[in-house]
């Protein structure tokens, strides 16, 4: 028994140690504590608002199908399966951590910080002029929370960008790097403007394509050059090894020359606006945080129109979509629509599947919209409704 207690104590201590290792400020890497967010699963489930946020946002994003089952189990008042319990227990730890992270980020979004950001974007300036800095901070914090709960990969991407900006701002010397690069290139007699100008001038999709290709290629060489110098190949011992015979010497000089040119070209490119953008694009594509591929991304007017058509919940539209759906499903089963009254059970199945699919399509959580399209979708879907409410609405339209 004593052995068991010891084992449990060791497990808990190990768990706490692991948790504290993971608990760092998402942007600054400083210390962070769970504080009031250190909640047990039962505390979360007893608080309606918290339960809704945990189940319908956080768990849904992790595993939509399993979460739907859990919602149904809870609604029916039956016991959760062991598998469902394990899932909730695992996700609840991540949930507490995410809640603590959001709090840290919200603390960073002060009215002063918003004033600084507004200085970089006239649209934010205009919004702040209309509603004031306090309300601006409040709205942004809410949206951050929503993102953190419902789209982990997008949240991580924003946090990664915040880290990059924080690093840059913590090193004032780095702000002067453009001038430093200019001086250095001049001192080394490196003049690559013509190289990039030839690609950028009179930008068309073809020259842009060429530029992207060239930047990718040069950035690849640049990275090899940086790895080459940091590998110690240029150190005294490394150099000695490289230059010990004539062939090695020639090869090393050629390699060094190629790398030196690549570094010069990329550095010069960082001072050329078009090339600068292309370099950023290449870096984003090769970044550590990959954006989750979502089928239902909404970034164009055409994508919005497609969703609007399929999400039209007026009874006439639902009926019309159902008629097309039923016809196609009966054809799949090689049944004639003329004899539809004979297949009541089949029709009931078709109707159930249709309602389920329509409910999915009307779930705003499945769409990822950016820019103005996020606002448009929020207008289209309106205040969030439960799946049951949406499903019941669809069912009653078919009666």
């Amino acid at each position: 028994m004593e052995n068991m207690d010891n084992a449990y104590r060791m497990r808990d201590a190990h768990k706490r140690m692991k948790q504290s290792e993971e608990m760092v400020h998402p942007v600054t890497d400083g210390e962070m504590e769970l504080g009031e967010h250190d909640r047990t699963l039962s505390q979360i489930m007893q608080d309606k608002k918290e339960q809704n946020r945990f189940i319908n946002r956080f768990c849904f994003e992790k595993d939509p199908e399993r979460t739907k089952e859990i919602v149904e189990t809870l609604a029916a008042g039956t016991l959760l399966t062991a598998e469902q319990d394990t899932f909730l227990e695992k996700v609840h730890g991540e949930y507490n951590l995410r809640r603590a992270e959001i709090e840290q980020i919200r603390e960073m979004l002060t009215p002063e910080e918003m004033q600084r950001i507004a200085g970089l974007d006239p649209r934010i300036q205009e919004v702040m002029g209309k509603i004031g800095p306090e309300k601006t901070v409040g709205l942004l914090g809410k949206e951050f929370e929503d993102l953190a709960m419902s789209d982990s990969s997008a949240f991580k991407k924003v946090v990664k960008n915040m880290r990059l900006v924080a690093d840059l701002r913590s090193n004032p010397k780095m702000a002067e790097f453009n001038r430093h690069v200019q001086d250095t290139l001049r001192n080394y007699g490196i003049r690559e403007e013509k190289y990039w100008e030839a690609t950028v001038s009179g930008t068309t999709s073809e020259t842009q394509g060429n530029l992207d290709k060239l930047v990718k290629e040069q950035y690849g060489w640049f990275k090899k050059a940086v790895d080459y110098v940091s590998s110690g190949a240029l150190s005294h011992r490394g150099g000695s090894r490289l230059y010990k015979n004539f062939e090695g010497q020639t090869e090393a000089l050629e390699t060094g020359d190629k790398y030196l040119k690549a570094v010069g070209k990329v550095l010069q490119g960082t001072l050329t606006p078009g090339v600068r953008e292309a370099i950023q694009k290449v870096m984003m594509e090769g970044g550590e945080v990959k954006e989750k591929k979502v089928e239902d991304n909404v970034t164009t007017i055409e994508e919005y129109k497609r969703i609007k058509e399929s999400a039209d919940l007026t009874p006439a539209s639902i009926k019309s979509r159902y008629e097309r759906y039923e016809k196609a499903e009966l054809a799949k089963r090689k049944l004639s629509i003329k004899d539809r009254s004979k297949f009541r059970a089949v029709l009931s199945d078709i109707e159930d599947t249709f309602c389920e699919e329509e409910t999915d399509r009307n779930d705003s959580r499945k769409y990822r919209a950016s820019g103005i399209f996020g606002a448009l979708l929020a207008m289209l879907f309106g205040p969030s409704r439960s799946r049951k409410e949406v499903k019941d609405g669809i069912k009653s339209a078919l009666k």
Partner: protein
Amino acid sequence: MTREELLAQMEKLVEAGDTKALETFALEHFKEFPEEVQSKLLFSFFNETLEKEAGDAQITEIQRQGLDALEKFSKAEPTQE
């Protein structure tokens, strides 16, 4: 304007295919939108600005690495064993 009227106006701009006009309209009528829409709009502006700033930070990091590499290249002298 009511929510329906705002959406109807936005739909007209969608039909015209004018994304820029959509954004201008949303900014002009910002206070009339429900809060959940206001926060989405504001966040999209914030995110674009942040992405630009982060892009600049990445470029600065490249510059730092590049300058460091140039310095090391310039100091490297072939030596015989």
